């Protein structure tokens, strides 16, 4: 399954905005790790930004809600909001082909 993927973990750059220790933030991080391992074989480097601690950075990136995942590379950047529990949406966000039912 993973052999058909067009991306590899190496050229993916991710930044995840979370709000402190909120439950959805924790879920987002674990969901993201599981997704990456499943599709890329390994988890790429994820920069985690806590908006409560670093509000300015979040503002500069136009982050309104948490959690927000920003795929910085490959370009163009893509924002994905939510706890990343929706795998189909996440596949679309990473431009992976949809899984046939």
């Amino acid at each position, binding site marked *: 399954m993973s052999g058909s993927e067009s991306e590899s973990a190496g050229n993916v750059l991710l930044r995840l*905005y*979370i*709000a*402190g220790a*909120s439950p*959805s933030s924790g*879920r*987002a991080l674990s*969901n993201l790790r599981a997704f990456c391992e499943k599709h890329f074989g390994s988890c790429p480097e994820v920069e985690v930004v806590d*908006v*409560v601690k670093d*509000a300015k950075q*979040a*503002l500069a990136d*136009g*982050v*309104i*809600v*948490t*959690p*927000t*995942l920003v795929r910085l590379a490959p370009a163009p950047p*893509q*924002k*994905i*909001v*939510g*706890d*990343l*529990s*929706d795998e189909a*949406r*996440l596949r*679309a*966000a990473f431009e992976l082909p949809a899984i046939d039912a």
Partner: protein
Amino acid sequence: MASTRRLVSIAKAPTGNRGFDDITRGGLPRGRTTLLAGGPGSGKTIVALETLVKGARDFGEPGIFVAFEEQSRAIRENAATFGWDIPALEAAGTLHFFDAQWDPSTISAGDFELTGLLAMIRAKAREMGAKRLVFDAIDILLTVLNDPAAERRELLRLQQWLVENQLTAIVTGKIDADDPVLARRNTLIQFMVDAVLRLEQRVEGRVTIRTARVLKYRGSGFAENEMSAVIGPQGFEIASVSSGDKIFAAPRGRVSSGVERLDTMLSGGYFRGASVLITGSPGTSKSTLSCAFVEAACARGERALYVSFDESADEIVRNSSSVGIRLAGHAKSGLLKLQARRADACSADAQLLQLQALIAAHNPTCVVVDPVSALAKGGGTLAALTVCEGLLHVTKARGITIVCTSLLDGSEPHAEASSIEISTVADTWIHVSYTIQAGERNRALTIVKSRGTRHSNQVRELVLSERGITLADVYTSGGEVLMGTMRWLKEQTDQSDHARAQLDIEQRRREIEAAQAELASRQRALEHEMRVKQSELARLSSSEVVRNDATARHHLELSRKRSADHPAKRNGSRAQRAGRK
């Protein structure tokens, strides 16, 4: 007493918008949340922003504007048109914008929450000591959540956050009672806020009508009525009638109508500070009467304002000069302000605010609105009547005498419903109509009512000529006032009758004078004759005495010579002479 009151009444934060502070009796609930609801273009963003701008500028309360819909750049640009210096406030650190527009390319993959945003706002609020906060277009954010349960959860989170942070907050949102999603959301939001202000915008007769209303205000009284409003050069302005309770001292003096004989009919003119309505069919010289009124005002050195919805300033000057009314000089000197306006340019309420501004700027004692019925074009008759009342209120408060004209066909004003029923409000009502007599159309003027004034009840003919405007003398015939050429004929007949009578009198007088002269000369002749006779008589008497003395001496001489004594004889002869005389 004051301290007790402070305990029961809630603290308020003035918005700085006079109209809103008026209808909310002092401003928004301090440290609490107000919902500003309304459809697209109803002015929510402007009102919310004004509250922040005035808060920062005038009340020392810094604020944060969170823009979910419009970009802050666009909001800043709009604000500049109202004269609010946003960059200065931003530089001073008393106003801050958060651009929180939703990126439409964002992919939603599971539940999310506002915690992050709220954390950022809290950080900024602490940094700048913010007291006020605006969430503009909360509905956009809630739509993104796309889940009733999430909406509810996040709204409650927001409410809790607002309560914790003690900010005076405004949440703006669209409201549409017909949309079930919005209606449900609305119910939820209304529950979490302490006050709800509703702004509306609708179109009546192609004209935009704006209104503002307080729907609820926990712990405070408020003006319950729907208020007319406009978005004008100062921002969102509410045509508030807070001066409605004021009782004006009734001015006592009189002010000329500009037509001397009309003044006489009104026992000296209009009351100063009164409202005058001149109704009539098209062309019955309503405008001319109005021009005469302002000309007279300017001639007295008073300032006058003439607002016309029909004619341009040049047309007013030109047309009135054809009947001997000279306005050009007064317009040039600045005493008279001629203002041409388009009736359908904006709503009646907007017109009122602009008229108010004109009056405040020019400060006239006499105002003409010609015709006031044009206001009905801006949102229907009800709006026009409200605006008329508002206008009369303004002029009464300033002691201004106002003449309004209104189109009204027919000769019997009472039988006709005045298009905007201003006639009930006006102090003096003059109706000009055409009367047709002997195949002629003439202008007939009636004073329908004039409060507090004895006034003539006679229908008079209004006569316009290059020498001016006046009322003709009354000629009645068979119970009707004669007008036009019939009046002229009657005048001519009367004049010739009068001339003839005059001649007759003259002739008779001459005859009598001649007779008198004759009698006088006869009298003089008789007197002369009398004097002649008297002198003749006197002469006669004296010669007889001389003669008698001589005779007596002669007798005496004889007697002495004859030694006879006959004194009685002499006496007897004297008696005989008297009898002869």
